[in-house]
């Protein structure tokens, strides 16, 4: 095809001179794995990072993608290739899932061999044979930009380039920190990036496009933590609130608030039930819906456990706020009073409010967002602290709780009185959810970035260690 028509000068051998939009950006996260073409505004391929495993005689068959992991197949279990730390744990599955993410929506496994597309009928059979080796690699034509967390280190950094170069045949590769990319996405080269994801909440100071590694802080009080709080709230309420996922419901009938549901449940024949992990995963869907429609961050002023100026407790004020109804998949519904709406997420700011039980200990003060920002800033040069505080970028899917950015802004103003604190968080939910991917898309499509790519040749000469040298 017409490659590089616009450029007249051939690119240097050492640098990758691809001039097209065909670079891919791959941004793995705990909840979803995002992949898409650089230069586009949303990732075309968004897959859950969870995958299904069907037990077979020869071990297990892996199922990827949204459509296949929500069907209650016999014995299906759900796992995740990411660790709760936000780094890749199972590299083999990761490579499979990434390849699926890319080939299912973005590129063809065999990029249209010119000889057989009917346009150029080449008589010469040899030419065809020559290319075959390279054609079977899914990313033969596409440079790849991958993201990593700020605390990714050591051997894990090299795995990505190995997969890209060896398995997929990429012509060029780059590994970028997602904190940096999120700050690029909001148009800043220096920022304090607060990324609230599914498994971790991280604070990354970015200065002139580079992370300040010492200042990277993280804690597990993110989306999954809120889900866990909800589960505790449901099980600790009197009577316990049933949590029945959608797949178990055949049909539901409307019932009065608070009364037991009258749904027809799906029954499974013995030995055809899905694994408990499947149910857990499906319950998350309901919890996500609950989080989207009911959970709200206490708007302040002060903390939910605190007192206001008149001396009354904030809890009393919260009790007067309107509640919100929620209906479970089985028809059970209830009005959730405002206190229940505020409480599950209050622990992100105030660990005293966290619900806990034997297996879920209450979080520590040092894990809250405020404390993370504080300790992060304590690690960076005192001169750049004001600059960072005036550019706090809030990103990540779990930052979308109603009122979260306002509350964070209040907290920071209390912590740093006299400093200008400015939070920049996109009002667009898509930009928030895919902040680091969008940053990667911007970066990889910049003309000046082309000289940055680690080319295939460089990789072959210097090995995977080149990532450590080049991608800081």
């Amino acid at each position, binding site marked *: *095809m*017409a490659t590089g*028509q616009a450029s007249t000068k051939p690119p240097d051998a050492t640098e990758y001179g691809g001039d*097209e*939009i065909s670079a891919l950006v791959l941004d793995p996260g705990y909840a979803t794995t995002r992949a898409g*073409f650089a230069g586009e505004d*949303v*990732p*075309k*391929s*968004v*897959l859950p990072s969870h995958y299904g495993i069907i037990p077979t005689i020869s071990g297990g068959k892996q199922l990827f*993608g*949204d*459509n296949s992991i*929500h*069907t209650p197949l016999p014995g299906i279990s759900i796992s995740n290739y990411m660790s709760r730390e936000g780094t890749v744990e199972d590299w083999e599955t990761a490579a499979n899932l990434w390849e699926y993410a890319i080939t*299912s*929506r*973005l*590129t*063809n496994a065999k*990029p*249209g061999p010119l000889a*057989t*597309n*009917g*346009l150029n*009928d080449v008589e010469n059979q040899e030419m065809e044979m020559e290319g075959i080796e390279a054609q079977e690699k899914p990313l033969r034509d596409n440079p790849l930009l991958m993201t990593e967390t700020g605390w990714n280190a050591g051997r894990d950094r090299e795995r990505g380039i190995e997969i890209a170069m060896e398995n997929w045949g990429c012509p060029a590769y780059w590994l970028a920190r997602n904190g940096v990319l999120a700050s690029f996405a909001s148009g800043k080269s220096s920022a304090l990036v607060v990324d609230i994801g599914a498994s971790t909440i991280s604070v990354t100071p970015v200065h002139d496009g580079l992370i300040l590694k010492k200042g990277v802080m993280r804690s597990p009080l993110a989306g999954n933590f809120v889900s866990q709080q909800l589960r505790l709230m449901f099980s600790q309420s009197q009577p316990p609130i049933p949590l029945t996922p*959608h*797949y178990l*419901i*055949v*049909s*539901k*009938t*409307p019932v*009065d*608030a*608070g009364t037991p549901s009258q749904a*027809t449940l799906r029954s499974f024949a013995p030995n055809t039930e899905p694994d408990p992990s499947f149910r857990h995963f499906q319950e998350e*869907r309901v919890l*996500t*819906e609950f989080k*989207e*429609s*009911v959970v709200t961050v206490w708007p302040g002023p002060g903390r939910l456990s605190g007192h206001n100026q008149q001396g009354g407790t904030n809890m009393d004020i919260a009790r007067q706020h*309107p*509640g*919100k*109804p929620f*209906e479970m*998949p089985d*028809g059970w*519904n*209830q*009005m959730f009073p405002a206190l229940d709406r505020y409480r599950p997420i209050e622990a992100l700011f105030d660990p005293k409010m966290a619900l806990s039980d034997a297996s879920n200990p209450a979080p520590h003060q040092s894990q809250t967002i405020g404390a993370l920002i504080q300790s992060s800033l304590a690690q960076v040069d005192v001169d750049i602290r004001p600059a960072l505080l005036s550019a706090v970028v809030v990103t990540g899917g779990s930052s979308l709780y109603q009122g979260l950015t306002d509350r964070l802004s209040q907290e920071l103003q209390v912590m740093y009185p006299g400093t200008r604190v400015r939070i920049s968080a996109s009002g667009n*939910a*898509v930009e928030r*959810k895919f902040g680091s991917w969008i940053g990667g898309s911007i970066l990889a499509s910049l003309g000046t970035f082309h000289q940055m790519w680690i080319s295939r040749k460089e990789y072959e000469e210097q090995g995977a260690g080149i990532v450590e040298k080049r991608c800081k």
Partner: protein
Amino acid sequence: MPPFKDEHVLIIAPGSQITLAQLGLPESFTPARLRIPTRMFPAEHKGEWEPMKVREKKLSRAAPQIGLNGHVEGDITMGETNGTTINLEDHEEEILYEEDPTSEEGAVYPLRDGRVVDWSCFFALLTHVYNTLSPPFHTPILVIAQPQWKPQDHETLTQFFFEKFRTPAFCLMDSALAISYAYATPTATVVDVGYQKCEVSIVNEYVVSDLGRGTPLLNCGGEAMTQRLFELLNGKGFTKEMCEQLKKNAICEVLPPGAELPVETELGNAASAGSTGATGSGDGQRGSIAAQGGAPRGPGVNTDLGDADEGREFKDGEDDDGVLDVATIVASGKTSEFLARKEKEKAERAAARKKDAADAAAASKERALPNSKRAKAVFHYQERRPLEELNVNGKRAMGGEGGQDVGEPKRQKSPELGAESEIQTAENAAAARKEERKEERRRNREGTAFVRKTVEVGPERLQVASGGILDQIADTIHRRISSVPEVNKRSDLWDSLVIAGNGSRVKGFKEALLATLHARYLISPSSATIFSSELPSNFTTPVATGANTPQPQHHAPHHGTGVNPLLLAATTASNPNLAPPGQSQQQLHQQLQQQQYYQQQMQSHQHSSHAQTPTSIKVLKLPDYFPEWKDTGAEEAVFLGAQVAAKVVFVVDQGLSKGFMSRTEYNEMGPQGIHESCL
């Protein structure tokens, strides 16, 4: 560049099974004029393709004469046959090439699951479509892109169209977007049920949402339903082909979830079996033979009525007096005889009626039941037999077995049957070709006869979607809408569901899907909100004028605006019209209670303001200003949308807002430019 004209626009919409195409935009947009199966047959050389199966026949010179003499439709003169073979006289064996328009043997379907699996074949198909329509030089082309085509595929196609056909303008349009154009809705949840897959796409403000579009739902299309029927009926001697025909028949239905399968009763069995002719003409415009003007079929060999005399046959089909195939009768030249016989039958019938009045009453009661309530129904199917076999068996089949009937395939009006359109295509193409070949093809067509058979089907025919298709599609719809990042968009998306695609043509499919969604996902107004103070600010204080009294809720669901959306949400939840059909009395009673309850709720002017969705689910209707689409149904709305888009993009807009890629742009940017000007 001169402006494009309506009559020059070429639209091609390839699907996994059927490719739709049309040259020119009519005054009022019509269903596609050209419908051909998306398949090609490998030709003699590798990489070359033929639109129809070409058989190579080695015949000794005497052979065809024997074959044709034995043929039932022996109106083919020997002269024609000799005309085609005469130049080979000096050989012992002659090689005859004949096109077989009904054969599927060795066919290659270039699109599978919406993806191009064989480019060479696909290009050949596009070329075939192009040549069939033979557009003038200044023809802009709009191609409907399958959601699964990747950017690379778009580039390949763009390159093909510009370089092969030298088109002045080219546009690729996503099929989901085209469907939303057809429904004239900027926001829609498009459920496209195809052959092997189902796609659920979100269209938001005329932009297809790429986010999380993912892969299609495999095994959730029409083919899966055929497969399901085959699983159920395999043990009863059904073939795949029979199941396919059964699926397209009106007696095959998708029951709403929870509906009970009819139970077999002895009387009902016999009566319903005999009167299926009536069923066909009554509610089946879907290819039931009786509905197409054929005489009501009598009892088959397998039925309880197999031993009935002729008079009995007409008795059972008595309400069918009006739909007898007059043409056949007149053509047979026995009109007077027929009328006499008919009179006699009427007399007999009257007598019989008196004799077993009670039986007849019960039978007619049974007959009045809709198809979904009957345990059994009779189904006529056509079995394709090649010429040779027919010559041997044809006569005997006619004479011996009463249930069989040999003849030309009945022309079926139903558009889903590929056979007819193929014949049409064949005729179109033939016009441009040599007379000789035309004759040959005609002979072929008549040569391959269809044997019509009758068989009885039990309640399996109502379980066509029982393999979990509906659950899977419903769950995907829920998931897709729930994954839309803008929470406030979701309720609009639930309110603008569009179900399209030929897979959804099976009777009752759409209703059952909607009922499944209702049963599983609809959020009803919570009674918990009665005591809360969530009053919408624009609600007036109740005045005792009666204006605020709720009206009976038996009207059809609203589609227009102007109704208070809150009121609407509350009423649709209790609206019996939206509830799944086939409810028992008890359920109805329950519903009434609910309704009263909601009315009370409304009187106190309370309403829940859920952020949760869906509080209502609505399926959009095709706008009724396209009369041509009323009869064919909205399954192929994608083509209507394509015409609307072609009109806007090529004729009205003329490229001002970059709706298509022009040749100049192609020359400048190459195939990659399509990404910038693609709908």
